[in-house]
Structure formats: structure tokens, C-alpha cells
């Protein structure tokens, strides 16, 4: 029907939000004519307030097709084939919702009767809820269910393995409350970007702000092995050897502090007053402290050592000084010193960085030394050291330079090094958490979660407070309380609600197959519930993860279409999707990726159309599940307590709480939530119900721009950034080593070596080459580095089953197959579009060759995550996936518990398959998954 027709039709525009990716939410409206969602557009009502001009991105436009996708699961289903496996037909048959709830309820009651944790101390119920926390924006009251249930193992993570911005998340929060790091784009003039795919991951707001910055004159230098769309939109692309970014960054520091002379070009007051640069380091590597335990600084003005918080005339940054004091080592080891030689930690850093010359780096990372020097010089030239700017009436330092790190740059081995170097570069010129500089966007590990600035609280030694997981002998979590053992193995990951998913979430898959040495027994969870996640596709070594899933005894999948994970499920519960259900969420403030708002508030996603199929609103499903589990009141209590949004009652203020004992309908929950949220926001001046939100879409109040920066809060409390020296962290590492040694765990030793006061470079690519050798193969046989990159059109969107998205994504090169350097391909006689195989020691994947110039000759790239074998439409795309050739391994896991999307591969034509030999792993006659570590081999003996 043409648009102009039908004036008599029932037409309405329904506001909703799109939160399909971490860069959301974006607000949109959908036009519904006679009950059918026809078209979608941005909600321009919020154009002024939204930092991305109120726009929505390409992914949002897929939502209508997502709603009417004929491949959706149209009603609850149950498995009839008890045998699970990729090649087993699950034999799903439609059932009624009543039967579905009956089956799940019975299982819930059975498990609760047995006890919430199993004999190994692990929760019997596990949940996985998709990447980046975005599913939370769709799962309604499910968080309240989880809160009401009791112990749940969320340690299988989001379902992707720990390949997020992991080191950035952890070190970022420690150092500057930066779960995610962003440039202060509206003010920045120079961005050094080591592989962050900003234009693919930062959503509407990121693209909007970056485009404005480019037009304004900001310059971005992009360092990555291939020319991503972000590199394309940068003023310069610097091809770098994969996984050597730390060498590049160390050489930048060398250039600045040694060749250019730190005293001439750095922000010396910032270094002296806002970092631990002047803290004196003793012979054992720990700070030298005064009798009160305060680290000492040498005051060159007086020629005396003083506690860090004393009045200091001229803090010494260089040299060595004789001081009295003591060092505090692990397990309260104390070294008392009299007249011991101590150096400022800055001097220690200068000593360490002396070796990392641009020439040294060139040999390592294959970026010309001349380029490294130029980039460093551009960085300091743009830093505007000494300048200030007024923000909201307050004068702040103005340092318009920022450094970003990409995913595989800041996770896995080398992640510590790159994160440290990046943050240190910002500290050198005083460009951390000030206008124009490198900022954090949100906090997930420190508290309070709602306020980054509020989380700047005084802690030890003049630094911000940070709750490490205990490593002392009496407080250490000896027996992991969940399967990934984050509290046991990773002090830095802290213990917030996000910590389980940020622990080594791939270890449970590994441990399920191979019982590690000296470790509690590991069994799969009795029940696993998965929501908007597909680990059978998105994990490293996805095929092996599928095998592990097949061993899970009972899986409840909230399901959209059939996919590679719910293939193993026992019950499929189809939820009403984005346009068919209701939820209220927080918007505004500062959020990842580049969401820096001048407002904050709430936005609604409301049922725009009646469910197309026999699906249910997620909150209604959850309420019923809570009833079945016999935890209804606890569940209602959790909703009232704020688990699904905000508190429904605050004593003396308002009370919109739900009555106990009455299962609430979704609409009631969100109606009350609307009232509570609007009351809370306006102090009761404007209380709005669900109908109001349905009409208006959102509600906002002002948010102070000063809260984009935590520098003012540090300055006000006279706190310092904990850089460059990592005393606390190293102490925890040393204690952890002792603890693990005490229980006979020797398979975490490499990880323990990563705890260093300051990171020393190691040749990271060799770790992956070594991995090839562990399989008895010569790395020369696998001459390519295989990498992946985010696709803007697909990332996080769970939209691989939408042909509309595929159509427009195909306009961007690389989506269709394996990107390979054109000249290199010709040497291998590979033609454009020819089917090629990418093979590692553990897996294979294939797709058409895409010949490009913008990629190093030693690198191949597979965009997105494909290789589907079940998801309708996606399974016919013939697209490769890096996840089919990477591996899950202890050897490839760093001390924070993360790994990287990188693997050594060979590439050959599919037409030469007849020459194919068995995979290295097959040839070894066993599949360990983690084969390279001795830990499991020994355990097996």
C-alpha cells in the first residue's frame, strides 16, 4: 500500500529505544498502521538533547524485519530427542506455555530441593545473557528473578569468552574509573588510535561526535594491521604487526621522556601532584613508607623525604636518595630500612623505558622509527600542556590529545602493557580525565555504579579506593564460589555484579572437559538459562563450546529463532521482541562508548504491535518462572528494591511498590517503575505513568558536563592516579602466587609472572607461534595472522538472520569473506571471490577471498562472527569466522583472565582441499582444547 493512501487507517507513531549495541540507547519511533509496524525513524524529538543528534543507526532499522521474521520461534517448544550433539536433531515440538512453565518449574523445584549449590560449591543454576550488558535492556524483570533465586553462576560470561576490552575494563577502572575509555571528542584535537574500531563500535553518538571532530580539524592516526573503516576515516593509517602495539607505545614514551626530554614537554605539575611518579621505591620494589605507612616523596626543596600528602616544595622525579622507612611486601612482609637508596618511581620508569627506543620498536612492530618519532611529536605538540579551559564555570586543564586501544590490543597477553602505556602517555602530558583528553565512560566494578565521579573516593596511599579480591591467606577465596573462579584467580576483577562475567569466563568450558590439577571438581550446571547469546558461534573455538553445551543436562533458552546454542536446549521460551514488549531504562549521563550527555533520565520501550507469534513479554515470562520456582515474594521484593530499574519505594518519598503474593503483570511493573523513576528524578514534582511515557517516549533532566571528568574530584580530594607504579597490584600478585602455591596449583604460573611493578615488554606474537609448536608444527607452516573486526551493521545486534541487514552490510567490503592482501593472494594464485580455507592447528573455516590493499601481507581478516550452521538465513551465507580457528587455552589466557582474537593460520584454495592434511590437533590423536598447557596433561596422569 502506498504511503499516501489510507487516511482512514489507524496510524500511530510509537516511541521506543534501540539498545541492540553497547553504544545505545538510541531513541526511535515506529509507524504502526492498522496494527502492522511499517516503518521506523529516529525520534527527532530528542535531537537537541541526544549527543548523536537524536539519530538511530542502521541496526535499529532492522527491527521491523526482526519482528516479522518468518523464521522466529512461534511458540514454546520442547526437545524430544534426549541425545544432544551438533548432529543430533533436537526434535523440537511445539508445546503450550503452560506445559513449558510446567517443565521448567519442575526442574527449578527439583534443583532448589537439592540445594542451590552443588557438592563442588558451585551454583546449580547458571545464566548467560549476551554481550556488553545490552540484553539487560530487554530482559525486563529477569535481574529481579536472578536476585531472588540466590547463588547463580554467571561465570560463563556473556557467551563470547573473554575477548572484550578486558584489560581496559579492569585496569581502566583501577586507574581512572574507566570501564571503557573514550576521547573527549568534542574537544580533542589529536587521537592516536591503536586498533579501536570507533566507527564500528561507538554507535550513533560516537560517529556523530567523531565526524564533528574531523570537520573541526581534529586529527586521528590509526594503528592497526588492516585498514578498518575507522582507519579509513582517519588522517593516517599505520600498519602494525599484530599484537606488537605495546612496543609501539613504549617507544612513544621513550621518545617523549628521553629523546624530547620529559621536563621540557610533559605536564610536570600533573606528574608530581596527580600521579605516583615521585613516590620513592625501595630495593624490594615497594614504596618506602614513613612510620605511619605513608609512601614517601623526596622534597628536593628541603632535601628531605616526606609523606606523600605533606606540603612538598619540589617533588623529586629523578635520581636516587638515601631515606629511612620501610617497605610493605606481600602478606605483610615488612622490610625496615635505614639510609636505604630509593628512587622515585618516575626514575624507575625512565630506567625501564630507556631500552625501548624507536629503532628497537621498529624491529618489533615493523612501524618505521621515523613514524614513531613523528607520532610522538605530534602527540605532544597537540597536548597543549599548560593550557586551561573553562567548563561549567570551572577552570580545568585543557589537553586535547587522547589514545584509544582496540579489542585485541587491550585483551589477552600484552593487554596490561598497552593499557599501562596508553594511560601513562595521557598522564605524561596531564591528559587523563581532563577536557580534551582520555576519559572513562562508565564504571562497572567500582561503586556506586550510577556515578563515576561519585566513585572517586579516597583509598590507600593517596589513590582512589579499589576493592581487589582478597589474596591474604585468611581472606582468599580458596574454593571458587563459581566455576570461573574470578575471585580466586583475578584480584583485579573485584566483586561487583559484573565481575563474574569479567572473570576468566572461558575457563568453565575448559575445566568441564579437563579437570585441572589441584582444583575443586567441575560439573556443568544443573540448569543453564541463556538469553540473547550464542556461545556456539561467538566463543573462541566455537565448535568445542558446542560440544560442551551438549553436555549440559538442562538448558532453558529464551529464543528468537533456532540457533547454534538453543539447538542444545531442552525448552525454548520465545520472548516478545523489541517492538512487542515493554521496559523502562535509564538514559543519559556518561555511558560507553562515547555517550557523554548533558542530560540524564529514562526512556521507554513499549509494545508497539501485538506479538506476531505466541510469544510472551519477558517480564511476564519471568514472573511466571518466579512463581514456578516458589520465589515470587523474593522476586517482587527484588523488583521493589530496584533490581529491574529503580526502587519502587523510598521511605518518606514515594511508594509504588508491588504487593507481595500477587504476580504482577508486565504493564503494572513498568507503570509503577515509570512513576517511581519520574518521582525520583523530579523530587515528586512530575510523576508520570506508563501511558505518559508511551506518548512522550522519554524524560530528561540536566546532567553537569563537569561529571564527564573525574579530575576535579581527584583534585578536590588531593588524590593521585595510580601510575606509573603498580605497587598494590603487584603485592596482590605476589600474595596470589603464594596462595596458589600453597594448594599446589602450578598452572597459573605464567599469569602470575605478569604482575610487575611496571610492565616489561615481551614479544607477544611469539606466544601464538609457540602455541603452534606445542602442536608439533612449525609456525612457518602457518604464516598468516588471522584477525577479526567488528562490523558496524552486525555488532551486538543479533541480526545475522535478517537479509535486510545483510544486503546493506554487503556494501562494505570484507563482509563477504576472508580479506587478504591482494599481492599476497596473487602469489598464492587466489582470485577475488575464490573460496579459500583458513586453517589453524585446531580448526578450519572457509569463505570467498576478498582481495584488498589495506591489509598487511601477513594478515587475514574475517569480519564479524559467522560460520552459522543452524540460524536460518545466516547458515546459507557462506561466511567464515575467526571463532572456528581460535582456541580456548590457559596458555593464551593472561593474568586478568582474558585472551585475544588472534591465531596463526595457513590459507589455501578450497579447490586444493584434496591436498588437505588432518588438523594438527587431530594428528596428535587427542583434542584437549587447552592442549598447550601441562596443567591438564599432568592432571590426567
Amino acid at each position, binding site marked *: *500500500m502506498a504511503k499516501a493512501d489510507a487516511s482512514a487507517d489507524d496510524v500511530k507513531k510509537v516511541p521506543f529505544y534501540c539498545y541492540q549495541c553497547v553504544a545505545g540507547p538510541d531513541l526511535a519511533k515506529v509507524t504502526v498502521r492498522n496494527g*502492522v509496524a511499517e516503518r521506523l525513524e529516529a525520534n527527532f524529538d530528542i535531537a537537541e538533547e541526544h549527543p*548523536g543528534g537524536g539519530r538511530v543507526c542502521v541496526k535499529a532499522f532492522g527491527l521491523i524485519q526482526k519482528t516479522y521474521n*518468518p523464521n522466529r520461534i512461534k511458540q514454546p517448544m520442547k526437545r524430544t530427542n534426549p541425545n544432544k550433539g551438533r548432529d543430533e536433531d533436537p526434535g523440537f515440538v511445539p508445546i503450550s506455555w503452560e506445559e513449558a512453565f510446567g517443565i521448567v518449574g519442575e526442574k527449578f523445584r527439583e534443583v532448589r530441593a537439592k540445594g542451590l549449590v552443588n557438592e563442588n560449591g558451585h551454583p546449580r543454576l547458571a545464566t548467560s545473557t549476551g554481550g556488553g550488558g545490552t540484553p539487560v535492556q530487554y530482559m525486563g524483570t529477569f535481574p529481579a528473578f536472578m536476585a531472588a533465586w540466590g547463588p547463580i553462576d554467571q561465570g560463563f560470561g556473556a557467551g563470547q569468552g573473554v575477548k572484550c576490552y578486558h584489560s581496559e575494563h579492569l585496569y581502566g577502572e583501577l586507574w581512572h574509573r574507566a570501564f571503557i575509555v573514550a576521547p573527549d571528542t568534542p574537544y580533542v584535537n589529536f587521537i592516536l588510535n591503536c586498533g579501536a574500531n570507533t*566507527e564500528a563500535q561507538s554507535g550513533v553518538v560516537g560517529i556523530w561526535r567523531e565526524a564533528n571532530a574531523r570537520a573541526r*580539524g581534529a586529527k586521528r592516526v590509526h594503528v592497526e594491521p588492516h585498514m578498518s573503516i575507522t582507519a579509513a576515516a582517519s588522517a593516517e*593509517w599505520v600498519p602494525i604487526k599484530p599484537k606488537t602495539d605495546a612496543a609501539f607505545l613504549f617507544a612513544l614514551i621513550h621518545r617523549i621522556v628521553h629523546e624530547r626530554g620529559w621536563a621540557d614537554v610533559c605536564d610536570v605539575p600533573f606528574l608530581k601532584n596527580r600521579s605516583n611518579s615521585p613516590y620513592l621505591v625501595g630495593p624490594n620494589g615497594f614504596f618506602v613508607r614513613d612510620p605511619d605507612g605513608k609512601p614517601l616523596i623526596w622534597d628536593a626543596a628541603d632535601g628531605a623525604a616526606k609523606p606523600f600528602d605533606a606540603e612538598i616544595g619540589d617533588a623529586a622525579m629523578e635520581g636516587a636518595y638515601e631515606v629511612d622507612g620501610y617497605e610493605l611486601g606481600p602478606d605483610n612482609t615488612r622490610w625496615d630500612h635505614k639510609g636505604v637508596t630509593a628512587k622515585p618511581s618516575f626514575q624507575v620508569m625512565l630506567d625501564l623505558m630507556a631500552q625501548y627506543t624507536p629503532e628497537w620498536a621498529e624491529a618489533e612492530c615493523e612501524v618505521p622509527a621515523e613514524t614513531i618519532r613523528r607520532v610522538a611529536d605530534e602527540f605532544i605538540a597537540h597536548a597543549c600542556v599548560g593550557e586551561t579551559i573553562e567548563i561549567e564555570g570551572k577552570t580545568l586543564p585543557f589537553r586535547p590529545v587522547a589514545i584509544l586501544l582496540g579489542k585485541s590490543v587491550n585483551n589477552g597477553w600484552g593487554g596490561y602493557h598497552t593499557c599501562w602505556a596508553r594511560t601513562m602517555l595521557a598522564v605524561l602530558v596531564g591528559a587523563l580525565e581532563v577536557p580534551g583528553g582520555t576519559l572513562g565512560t562508565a564504571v562497572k566494578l567500582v561503586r556506586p555504579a550510577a556515578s563515576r565521579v561519585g566513585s572517586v573516593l579516597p583509598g590507600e596511599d593517596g589513590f582512589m579506593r579499589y576493592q581487589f579480591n582478597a589474596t591474604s591467606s585468611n581472606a582468599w577465596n580458596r574454593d571458587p564460589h563459581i566455576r570461573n573462579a574470578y575471585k580466586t584467580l583475578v584480584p583485579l576483577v573485584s566483586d561487583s555484579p559484573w565481575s563474574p562475567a569479567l572473570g576468566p569466563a572461558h575457563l568453565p568450558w575448559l575445566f568441564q572437559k579437563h579437570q585441572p590439577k589441584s582444583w575443586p571438581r567441575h560439573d556443568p550446571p544443573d540448569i543453564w538459562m541463556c538469553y540473547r547469546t550464542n556461545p556456539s558461534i561467538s566463543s573462541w573455538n566455537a565448535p568445542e563450546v558446542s560440544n560442551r553445551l551438549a553436555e549440559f543436562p538442562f538448558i532453558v533458552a529464551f529464543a528468537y529463532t533456532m540457533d547454534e546454542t538453543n539447538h542444545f536446549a531442552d525448552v525454548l521460551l520465545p520472548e516478545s521482541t523489541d517492538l512487542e514488549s515493554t521496559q523502562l531504562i535509564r538514559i543519559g549521563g556518561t555511558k560507553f562508548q562515547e555517550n557523554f550527555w548533558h542530560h540524564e533520565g529514562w526512556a521507554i520501550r513499549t509494545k508497539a504491535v501485538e506479538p506476531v507469534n505466541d510469544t510472551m513479554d519477558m517480564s511476564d515470562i519471568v514472573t511466571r518462572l518466579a512463581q514456578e520456582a516458589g520465589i515470587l515474594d523474593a522476586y517482587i521484593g527484588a523488583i521493589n528494591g530496584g533490581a529491574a530499574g529503580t526502587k519502587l519505594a523510598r521511605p518518606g518519598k514515594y511508594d509504588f511498590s508491588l504487593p507481595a503474593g500477587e504476580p504482577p503483570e508486565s504493564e503494572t511493573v513498568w507503570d509503577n517503575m515509570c512513576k517511581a523513576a519520574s518521582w525520583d528524578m523530579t523530587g515528586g514534582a512530575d510523576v508520570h505513568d506508563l501511558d505518559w511515557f508511551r506518548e512522550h517516549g522519554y524524560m530528561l533532566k540536566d546532567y553537569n558536563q563537569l561529571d564527564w571528568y573525574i579530575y576535579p574530584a581527584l583534585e578536590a580530594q588531593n588524590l593521585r592516579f595510580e601510575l606509573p607504579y603498580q605497587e598494590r597490584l603487584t603485592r596482590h600478585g605476589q600474595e596470589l602466587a603464594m596462595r596458589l602455591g600453597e594448594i599446589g596449583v602450578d598452572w597459573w604460573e605464567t599469569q602470575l609472572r605478569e604482575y610487575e611493578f611496571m610492565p616489561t615488554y615481551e614479544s607477544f606474537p611469539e606466544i601464538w607461534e609457540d602455541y603452534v609448536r606445542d602442536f608439533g608444527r612449525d609456525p612457518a607452516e602457518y604464516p598468516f595472522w588471522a584477525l577479526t573486526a567488528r562490523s558496524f551493521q552486525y555488532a551486538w545486534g543479533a541480526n545475522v538472520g535478517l537479509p*535486510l541487514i545483510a544486503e546493506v552490510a554487503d556494501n562494505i567490503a570484507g563482509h563477504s569473506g576472508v580479506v587478504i592482501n591482494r599481492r599476497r593472494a596473487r602469489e598464492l594464485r587466489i582470485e577475488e571471490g575464490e573460496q579459500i580455507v583458513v586453517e589453524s592447528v585446531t580448526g578450519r573455516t572457509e569463505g570467498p577471498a*576478498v582481495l584488498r590493499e589495506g591489509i598487511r601481507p601477513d594478515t587475514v581478516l574475517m569480519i564479524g562472527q559467522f560460520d552459522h550452521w543452524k540460524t536460518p538465513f545466516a547458515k546459507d551465507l557462506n561466511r567464515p569466522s575467526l571463532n572456528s580457528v581460535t582456541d580456548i587455552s590457559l596458555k593464551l589466557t593472561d593474568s586478568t583472565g582474558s585472551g585475544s582474537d588472534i591465531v596463526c593460520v595457513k590459507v589455501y584454495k578450497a579447490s586444493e582441499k584434496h591436498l588437505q592434511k588432518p588438523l594438527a590437533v587431530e594428528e596428535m590423536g587427542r583434542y584437549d582444547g587447552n592442549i598447550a598447557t601441562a596443567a591438564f596433561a599432568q592432571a590426567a596422569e
Partner: protein
Amino acid sequence: MSEALCHDPEHTPRWGMAIDVNRCVGCQTCTIACKHWNDTLPDIQWRRVIDVEQGEYPNVQRQFLVTGCQHCAEPPCVPVCPTGATRQREDGLVTMDYDVCIGCGYCAVACPYQARTIAHEIQGYYDGEITRQEEAVFDDGRIGVAQKCTFCSDRVDSGLAAGLTPGLDPDATPACSAACIASAITFGDYNDPGSNVSQLVRDNPAFQMHEELGTDPQIKYLYTTPAVPGREPEPDDLSDERLADPANPLVGKVQQFWDWRAAMNWMFGGVGSGFVFAAWTMSFVVPADAAADYGLWLSAAQLAGAGLMAIGLFFVFLKIGRKMRFWRAVSRPQTSWMTRELYIVAVFGIAVLLGIATQHPAAQAVAAFAALGFLGCQAMILYRARGIPAWRHKLMPWMIFGTGLFEGFALLMPALALTIGLLAAFQLLVPLEIFVYSALALKTMQSASVAIVVLAAANLILWTAYRRSAAANGIGPLARSVLARVYRRVLILGTGLPALLYLTGLVAFGMGQTGTRLAIGVWLAGSLLAIFCGAYWKFMIVARASYQQGFAMPKQPHRGSGDRAAPPRLGGTAMRPGTPLAKAPAGVG
């Protein structure tokens, strides 16, 4: 944008876009927003952003180029349209009337921006299943007709009616521009010097794509900012190797609008019309005493020629998307050579019938010149298809024209031989008459031979000149490689050999009976070769060498790696925040 001017009834806006290449990141939000608003079928993208990579590792750059209808001030698609379905409004918007279009595809091949498509059937995104939403938004009226970007004229019009300002108010702005998340696509009124787009192109260097074609596109591309200065393309970017790479999105593909069925019009129509004219010219070499008989034969020949032309037109009829509306093609005689072709066909048809009925030489002469006109129309139809570089070459009409005549004269031989043969076979002539008529036919053949040799030489010269100047006239390497193949065959089999055979015939003719027989033989052989090769090359030109005009970036933001990276900038130009965005688009909202 001065709202007052936009809403001033005295003011005629000229809507256009300024697209900032430096801002665009290829996210495809515009592409999908356009698909949403305009309900386009799978794989039809009125707005498309292509991913362009240039240079060689490590000196590479990658750009994203927004493509689509340029709403040219001088749109080549409008004058060619035979129905008037494609028009240009006062405000510059090039519009489509789906109820009038016959789906002939002429506008699509006339567009140098690959902006037009024709969907011949309704198709959903999911195989075998039409979703409720697809069913709700499908527009049958858009099937079998040309479609393209309208600059969302419906939004512009309804927006203006509601007092909104296109380019500033999203509801009055094309969906792509309103949706753009990089503020790369700015829409506005180029006739208003104060408008956003006017300011942008006044303050910033901009280029128009394929400016040299004289289309004056109303999409102007910005390519330089203080951070990322503009640059010229490197010679390598325009190398044959790059432009012969089908994976290069700048390279056009073979058009699919006019296939072998359309080619039949040139194959049959060319030889048919040429034959009619050639046969008429021979009436001047026929002795006066045979004039009446020749006149009879000429009528038959004109009827036969008409038949050939009709076959060609019938195949065109088979190709058009909305057959029952074919009659609408008579609507644009002012500008469309396709319409003119139809009118000339009418004149021709009437003249042929009158000629048959009256045997009046004037009617036959009118028919002959109408046929010549028809041939001319055919020549001009291809030439005016500005979207196909191989067609729009200035020699192409002469080649079509010359070859039509060449084929027409060549067809005289078999036609005359066949006539005599048939008359003899059916014993319609007594032996003496056979002798007389054969002598007459041979005389005619001899005269025609001279014309054929001359035309062969002319065609050879035209083809050679065409091929030599192909690259200089913007015909890309892929098309040129097809042309090279065709040229060799045309050179040897289509012109050289026939000319040689005709010359041989001319020499042999008169050398006794054997010589005459030899002459007849080689003339017939030469004719068949000439006709066959003529048809062959026209088929190849229409259906195989018809690569669409590719896209171009005559200027680019200077960004990339190595030699192509923006030059280092060591401070000094750092801008203070709060400084108004220098030369930055105001954008929507």
C-alpha cells in the same frame, strides 16, 4: 537556511545535497533509512554507499562514496523518456510517475549515475514468504517501471505544506539526510544563497560527479577540511588495471536493462531500414523502361524492410516492463528519439502502404526517407544513452547509421537473387524475362557493389576511429576489451572481407558467364558476412560492451597511509573548543 525565502511563493527553490566525503564512514544508515521510507524491494537501493579502496599497500586509502540519483540540473534521463513519466520539477527534483512509465529502461541507460532500476516482480526478503509488513507496504505500481531516488519529494512537499523547512526539519528532509549519523548528507536549497547547502559549497571546495558530462548534478561532494586536506587522485587509481577490476565499486557493470531483445531492434531495424533506403536509391540506376517493374519490386522490398523493422520493434515490446501501456511512448516527440522513432515508423508505414497501393514514386520516396529517419533515430537512441560510455561516443550514431546502410545495400544482393530465383522457381517468368530481369538485377547488384565498398570503407574508418578514441572518450577497459574483440571481427569479417569480395565481384563481373557466376557468388557471400557481422557488433555493443558509467571521485579527502596519509601537523593549528565548527555542515537538527 533562510526559512522566509524557502516559503516565499515567489521563490523557486533548487533542491540539492552537499555530501561531505570526509564525514561519511560507510555505516549504511542512509541506505537502510531510504529503504525504509521508500519501501524498496530486496537489493534495490536508491541510496547506496560504496566502499572505495585505492592505492597499493602500504600506500592505501579507503573512502565511502554516497551514490544515488543526482537530480541533475540537466538530467539526461528526462529528455530520453518517451512517455513523460520522468520529469523535472520547477524545484529541480527529477520525478517518476509510475502510472505512466512503460518500463522501457531508456532512462536507466541514460543515467550516468546508476541511479535507476526496474523491478519486474514483487519479491520479499525471505524466500517463499512475504511478511506482514512487506505485504502492507508493497506497491504494485512500482513493478515493471523505472524507479529511483526522489529526494523524498513526498517528505519535502508535505513538509513545506506543513510550514516546515526542508533540510532543517527532519520531517521535510529526505530520509537519508535526516537519518545520517555523521551529518555527512546535508539537504537544502541551492537557489537560496543563505541555505545550509549553499553555504557549505561556498565555503568549501566541492566537486560534482562526472561534471564533464554536462549534467550539472545537484549533489555536490565536499572533500576537504582543515584536518584532512583534499587531494587529486593518483594516476594509479585511474589505471586500466584498477578500472578493469570488477570488484572495484567505481567500475560500472554491464547494464541489464536492454538485453538481446532490445538489441534485436538495432539488428533487425538497422538492416531493414537500410534495405528500404538502399532499394530506393537503386531506382535511379534502373533503366527507365524497367522503372515500373522495379517500382513493383521496390514496394515488395519496402514491405520486407518494414517486416524486419517490425520484428525488431516486437522484441522491444517484449522487453518493456508494462506492455499494455506501450502506446504511451508517443508522448515525448519534443526530446525523445524513442518517441520520434515511433512517429517515423508511423509515417513509414503509411508511406509503404500508399506506395504499394499507388505505386507512386513520391510515396516510395517518403517511405525511403522515413526508413532513413528510422535509422537515424536508432543511431540517436543509443547516442543519447549517456549512462553507457560505449554508446554515447560521438561516432556511435554514425556507426549505427553507416552500418545500417551498409547492411541495407548488402541485403539487396540476396534479395534480388531471391526474387529472381523465386519468380523462376514458381515459373512466373518466361525464360526471356528471366534473362532480362536477371540482367537488370545484375546491373543493380553491380551498382550496389560500389556503394557497399564505399560504405565498408566508411565503416572501417568509423570503427577504427571509434576504437582508437574509446579510452579518451571515457570508455573503460572492460568495455574496451569487448570492443577490441568485436573490432577484430568487424575489421576482417565484417568490412574487410566483404569489401574484398565485392571488389572481386566487380572485377569478375563481365568476364563471361563464369565471371558473372563468380561475382554473384562472392557478392552473396560478402552480403551475408556484412549483414551477419553488422548484427553481431550491434548485439555486442548493446548487450555486452554496455558497461554502465562507473562512479568517480575526482577529488578526495587526503587520508590513508604512506604517501596518501594527511601530512603531519605539529601543533599550532589546534583549535580551541567553543570555536564554531569552521566550515562544518549545519546539518539537520
